[in-house]
């Protein structure tokens, strides 16, 4: 009885979370220009529009990809030395640095967005694609920082001592012991940052100005004219990318451990 009740509850939750997503995705099949649910005169024309023919969507999708991949790579590169210093030294300076570097992610993003408008305004880079990439790299630095810290903490100290006894210096130990074990955590950090950057709206909304737009900004800007089924294709693309990446992380990494659950049990 209790089991049945809990299954019903969990099923209900699954529907509550999945239903709005499903509605957006199915709306992409609409034949006309308006969003109907269930879709009317289903067609796949919207897909060719989104990916190939409509300049505005093709361009913003390309921008979204550039910003996401670029900022995630930059975030991982910036996070590595900070996480490594935090693990090796654990002094107040590295703790402070890690704390300050996570600040943009922890505070309401709209405030960081406002600050970035001023910052890039003074640097003369407001509305550039590269300043958008850097903005996202800093905003999502906390993610690779977290996954890398979790990974470094799970490294067996005995391996390090053994390496030191055998005369390996820091660089050798890093290359032969730490780096190989850290690859899954580096990859997860990269992909977490990538997916979040891909979907982020408010900070790009502030810093992109009229220089360029990503898919999320373009959708918000087109909102005045109402939603169109072509936008829903964007939704399908985004949810597919997320599902793919998180499935890969779950397949090749330890997702419960990455999210902070008890890590000693092997999956």
């Amino acid at each position: 009885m209790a089991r049945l009740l809990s299954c019903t509850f969990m099923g209900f939750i699954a529907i509550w979370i999945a239903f709005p997503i499903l509605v957006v995705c199915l709306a992409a099949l609409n034949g006309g220009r308006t969003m109907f649910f269930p879709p009317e005169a289903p067609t796949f024309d919207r897909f060719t529009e989104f990916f190939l023919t409509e300049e505005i969507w093709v361009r913003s999708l390309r921008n979204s990809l550039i910003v996401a991949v670029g900022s995630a790579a930059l975030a991982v590169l910036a996070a590595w030395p900070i996480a490594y210093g935090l693990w090796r030294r654990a002094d107040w300076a590295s703790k402070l640095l890690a704390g300050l570097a996570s600040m943009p992610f922890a505070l309401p993003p709209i405030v960081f967005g406002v600050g970035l408008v001023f910052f890039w305004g003074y640097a003369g880079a407001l509305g550039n694609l590269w300043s958008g990439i850097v903005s996202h790299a800093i905003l999502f630095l906390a993610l690779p920082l977290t996954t890398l810290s979790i990974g470094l903490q799970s490294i067996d100290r005995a391996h390090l001592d053994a390496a030191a006894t055998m005369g390996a210096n820091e660089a050798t130990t890093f290359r032969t012991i730490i780096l190989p074990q850290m690859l899954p955590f580096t990859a997860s950090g990269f992909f977490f940052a990538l997916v979040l950057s891909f979907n982020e709206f408010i900070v790009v909304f502030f810093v992109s100005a009229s220089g360029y737009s990503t898919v999320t900004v373009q959708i918000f800007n087109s909102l005045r004219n109402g939603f169109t089924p072509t936008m829903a294709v964007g939704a399908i693309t985004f949810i597919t990318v997320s599902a793919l990446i998180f499935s890969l992380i779950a397949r090749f990494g330890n997702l419960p451990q990455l999210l902070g659950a008890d890590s000693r049990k092997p999956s």
Partner: protein
Amino acid sequence: MRATQPAIPFTVARLFQKFVVLVLAVVPFLLVFAISFGEKIEGAAWVWSFELSNYKRFFVGADYPNSVSFLYLKYLWYSIYYALIASILAVATAFPFVYLMTRLSRRVQTIWLVFFLCSLTFSEVFIVMGWDILMSNRSGLPMLFKESGLTDWLKQTGGLDIMRDWGLATPRNVRFKPSEFATILTMTYLVWPYAVILLYPPVSKINNEIIEAARTMGARPATVVRTVVLPMVRTPIVGTILLLFVFLLGAYVTVAVFAEPAKHTLSISVYEAVRGATLNAPFGSAQAVILLLTAAAILFFGRRFVSHPEGR
């Protein structure tokens, strides 16, 4: 552990890298703070200055003491109101779910986690789009109400008038947006997966043996939850509510689409001042600072409220 000193250029490069990160992460916030004391020049941009007029305008209006306006305090109130209700609703409903989820096998847990991570990262613009379709008049909920005869039933029994008082109906039909209901519903939905992900680590550490021990000693399930489970997770629950609250304080798209203009929040007016129609960067900064201070204050009092019962 013995460490050989790395080469000097490498150390310099590493220090430089940390310096750049620090500048990029901290200076934008400092700029917001500094510019909030600036002065707007009529018909032009703004200049550096040190005056409190922007803050005065926030609390009592620009024309004080001749007249008083609480417009921006009202925006702040709606920011807090939506965010608080939505974050409490999300945690209250997500907690039992997370508890049930962590009792499943590791494999099934991972599948659920992937599902929630997908919905968590799904952009706010798409989520708003989904609920917009679901609450629009020609499809979604109002259509469902009409087709199932619920609208007619409500009309006959006077339920529609009650719903009109709540802002959820027009004289002839139900109408869910714009309304407080739509705003809070979408916000709750927005942070629901966050609640799951944040509650997951502490709840997964709840030991089954303790619960079984309590059960063996004759405690009923409700008693176990009240006396064993809840005290163990009080701190993470309050912590999660606080984090979701801070996140929702800055919600933009949901409010812009689903709230009536009179019930907009501070994040809307911050955008208007910095990038939008009114273009008053110092005043926008002052509002952003107040948003931050509100978040800080709530976090502070929230932490005090929990006050670590386990003595940690």
